[in-house]
């Protein structure tokens, strides 16, 4: 069942640095899917996403604030499906500073130093969150 608050079990998944996927939708109804490097836990009802480039994603959430994020829990063979709504953008403060530091670490680990640069921390309200266990293979190729 979907929850409306981020449970404590999701924190290590968000902190793992595993890339996530974000889906947004333009005002004229075209979905956009992109890989994002960071989903930051702000509090039980808010998450922050990094704004690094002036992208279609950024344009979409300014037109249509709803967003979907999928965070992968590789060891648990599961993922978390988050429905979010964009609230505001922060360019300074504790959330921005923490994300900036994390993003530099992720860039360095993934060979993206000099490419990843945080422009803003976009703060989203959590609309719903759900953990989805991946189905096991039962076919002969399992």
């Amino acid at each position: 069942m979907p929850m409306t608050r981020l449970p404590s079990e999701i924190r290590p998944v968000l902190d793992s640095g595993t890339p996530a996927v974000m889906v947004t939708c333009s005002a004229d109804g075209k979905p956009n899917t992109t890989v994002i490097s960071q989903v930051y836990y702000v509090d039980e009802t808010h998450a922050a996403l990094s704004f690094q480039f002036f992208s279609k994603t950024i344009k979409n959430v300014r037109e249509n604030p709803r967003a979907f994020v999928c965070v992968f829990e590789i060891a648990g063979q599961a993922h978390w499906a988050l429905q979010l709504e964009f609230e505001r953008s922060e360019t300074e403060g504790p959330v921005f500073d923490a994300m900036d530091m994390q993003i530099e670490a992720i860039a360095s680990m993934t060979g993206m130093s000099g490419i990843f640069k945080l422009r803003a921390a976009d703060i989203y309200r959590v609309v719903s969150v759900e953990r989805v266990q991946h189905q096991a293979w039962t076919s002969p190729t399992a």
Partner: protein
Amino acid sequence: MDFIACDILIPGKLIRFLEQYANVAYAGIRDRDLVPFGHRVSGWRVGADQRSITILFPDEFLPRLLESLQHNRELALTVEEFPSHETYQFKGHYLRHRGIEDGDFDIADRLRRRWVKSIRPIFADAPEDVLKGFVSPPSLAVDFEVLEIYLQTPGPGAGTRLVPPMER
């Protein structure tokens, strides 16, 4: 802006990328209220016409997926090669769907093996089954016509439309 489907061909370089190198993909849709939703992908195959892609979906949220696709046909597919991060997004329209056939499991299994090979250096001690569990067995095949292709490899060029080419 709508594009005429017959003008769009997936370039050979991208077909090779899709069939030989890419190892993870994710699909995006939206509902009648413009609420976006994402779906994991178990595999894909480029159509013989080079204008369409068949996406294999696992058994997750399938009623919502089909309802949205049949309502507005809008579909976006991001495909990445990890760990190089070479990434492309294919946007287009839902054509049809069908149940899974024998060959679809082989496609998903090939993707699973490619994925495990790519991620093994990062999860050196993880059991094979855990890493394989990232790619689920397919339950539904959806054909969609590709109308636009975008570069999404991280960097300043991300978001550039490759097909049809952007006007200069």
